[in-house]
């Protein structure tokens, strides 16, 4: 089995069948983490380059652990250590990496569309680990995996995504995935942080947190970049918290079995109180654990077909 596309650039390019294939495959990889020897030989001899041009703790270590558990050889390249800082273009850096015959390049970049540019120019498979405000497909996949784990379905669920929607690739990828899977999605934030025409991507829009949360099965909180205050998007963290900070009182409006998610890193006391983040509904650390299995599934499915050819 493998994915229809050669690259994982975004949720936009996936159909529901692809999404289900990834989630089902991740199910099988979940138990690898519970073994004493956390390694399977599936990608032995394969090379994966993790090319991160933006700071990342969770996503980068998650990919790296996923690669190692699949026995792939991985190389990490970060922005400050790469020749990008010497003025090399992204395409040239990509071509140089490709000259060393990697099978997959995982890229994180601050510009929307950077992975698409590389995919267009290189033969290696490209995995988008977050591009600008555009997409973060593996985050949406691990979120969907976590929701499915807890709710045993995606279809028909009510999901609220709360915070800085405009500057969030996590919000976009989740919205696309959840809509493809038949969930109902409400995005919520101050009007300054809601991008124009987001409803055309299938979202309900509100700036009333209570309304967004009412009857929700899932609440996804987004990280608020503190520097947005300088851009005039909101007057103060104090006021932001008053309207959009998630408290225990808010959570009571949701379904009794609601789950609370956050892609990290969290600003405690800004978008979420510690009481909620550490409370019984929170699945934030499970998201992180599931991230490894989901990324293993993506790596495996992108290279799976060629592994079969070798076996044949």
């Amino acid at each position, binding site marked *: 089995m493998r994915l229809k596309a050669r690259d994982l650039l975004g949720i936009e390019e996936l159909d529901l069948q692809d999404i289900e294939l990834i989630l089902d495959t991740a199910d099988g990889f979940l138990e690898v983490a519970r073994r004493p020897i956390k390694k399977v030989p599936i990608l032995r001899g394969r090379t994966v380059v993790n090319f991160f041009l933006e700071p990342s703790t969770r996503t980068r270590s998650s990919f790296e652990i996923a690669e190692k558990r699949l026995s792939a050889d991985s190389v990490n390249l970060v922005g400050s250590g790469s020749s990008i800082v010497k003025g090399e273009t992204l395409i040239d850096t990509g071509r140089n990496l490709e000259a060393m015959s990697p099978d997959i390049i995982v890229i994180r970049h601050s510009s929307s569309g950077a992975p698409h540019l590389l995919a267009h120019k290189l033969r290696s498979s490209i995995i988008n680990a977050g591009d*600008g405000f*555009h997409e973060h497909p593996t985050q949406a996949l691990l979120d969907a995996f976590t929701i499915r784990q807890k709710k045993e379905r995606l279809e028909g669920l009510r999901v609220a995504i709360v915070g800085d929607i405009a500057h969030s690739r996590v919000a976009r990828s989740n919205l696309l995935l959840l809509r493809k899977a038949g969930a109902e999605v409400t995005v919520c934030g101050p009007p300054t942080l809601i991008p*124009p025409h987001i409803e055309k991507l299938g979202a309900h829009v509100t700036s009333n947190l209570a309304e967004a949360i009412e009857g929700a099965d899932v609440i996804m909180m987004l990280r608020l970049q503190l520097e947005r205050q300088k851009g005039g998007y909101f007057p103060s963290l104090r006021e932001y918290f008053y309207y959009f900070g998630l408290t225990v009182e808010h959570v009571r409006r949701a379904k009794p079995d609601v789950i609370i998610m956050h892609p990290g890193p969290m600003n405690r006391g800004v978008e979420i109180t510690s009481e909620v983040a550490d409370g019984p509904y929170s699945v934030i650390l499970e998201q992180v654990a599931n991230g490894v299995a989901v990324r293993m599934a993506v790596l495996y499915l992108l290279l799976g077909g060629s592994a079969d050819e070798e076996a044949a």
Partner: protein
Amino acid sequence: MKRLLKGGRVVDPASGVDGRADVLIEDGRITRVEPNIATADSEVVDCSGRVVAPGFIDMHVHLREPGREDEETIASGSRAATAGGFTTVACMPNTEPPLDNGSIIEFVLTQARRAEGANVMPIGCVTKARKGAELAEIGEMVRAGAVAVSDDGSPVASPLLMRRALEYCRQFGIPVIDHCEDPDLAASGAMNEGQVSTALGLRGMPCAAEDIMVCRDIRLAEITGGRVHIAHVSAHRSVEAIREARARGVAVSGEATPHHFSLTEEAVRGFDTHAKMNPPLRSEEDRAGVMEGVLDGTLEAIATDHAPHNAIEKDVEFERAPFGIIGLEMAVSISLDRLVHGAGMKLAEMIRRFTEGPARILGLRGRGTLAPGSHADVTVLDPDCEVTVKMDALHSLSRNCPYSGWKLRGAPVMTLVGGVLVWRRD
């Protein structure tokens, strides 16, 4: 030296001519436009089955010289112009250094004479070094040959300075051409703000950044009596504002680019940097609004905003890529295809947007018409031939445009500048 353009359909909107006629050229001037001219001593150019029009004028190009001769030169740009059916281009002053004084205007004109391509009419800066702080020596530039002033690429952001520029230019009778974009509202945007920017996660530039400044400029033209020309109108509300102001008699004019009436923001999907320009491609409503403005004459000129860029600079992350696409060698075909064949525009009206319109705005005497005594700048069209846009056939030094492989109906086939046949389609 006499040359006779024989047997064509002559369409000269400025003189109200549309019919079968011959055009006689003597010593670089048009001398007669009549049916069945018989002369013994002239070279005859067969124009049967063709449309003979006044030489097309593109009032908005970037020729990049001085400064970025790797992207375009005055020579290559003026040859690209003739191969696109243009006999005159007006070049914008955002070069390195910028065209902000008389001697550099003279340099452009000298290079243009050497090039022997299309006529090149320089546009000077409104402000010194395009910095938006003090007026440039506009009078000196006009004496040297500048036909207008503009800080194109940037707006004249200060309303007070724009007011002064409009007032000051009245004594020279030249228009101030403004690139209307509120710099705060459009700040760091890479494309139109709308559903596609939301889907792609790119920072958007709202239409209001343009139309707010169009409205400002209209009011300033009104209180000063100066002439303002709005470059590359991209938003339907800008068109409406210009239409309303013109009806009131305000001295405002506007131009449309072929890309703004033939493409929308949808072309950016896939992060194609060849669809990145400023002002950006906008919504379908805006595209239709701009086209309507061209059709009803609110926008008097079609101009390319030909903006050559080195492939190395366009082959980067979308946000990092420079704004701009080339257009000199496709504009006439796109206009024939989309306006005449696609939207039922009368051929004479389309020709007017390329001739009488820009000639009036720039105050060019003896151009944009075939009236006897005019410069013998002539564009010959085949309005029905099928052409495919091929990148390797271009004369421009740059290739940055989204038109590769486009099949279009109608094309220029011959260009004469000052009576000299400078280009002919193979």
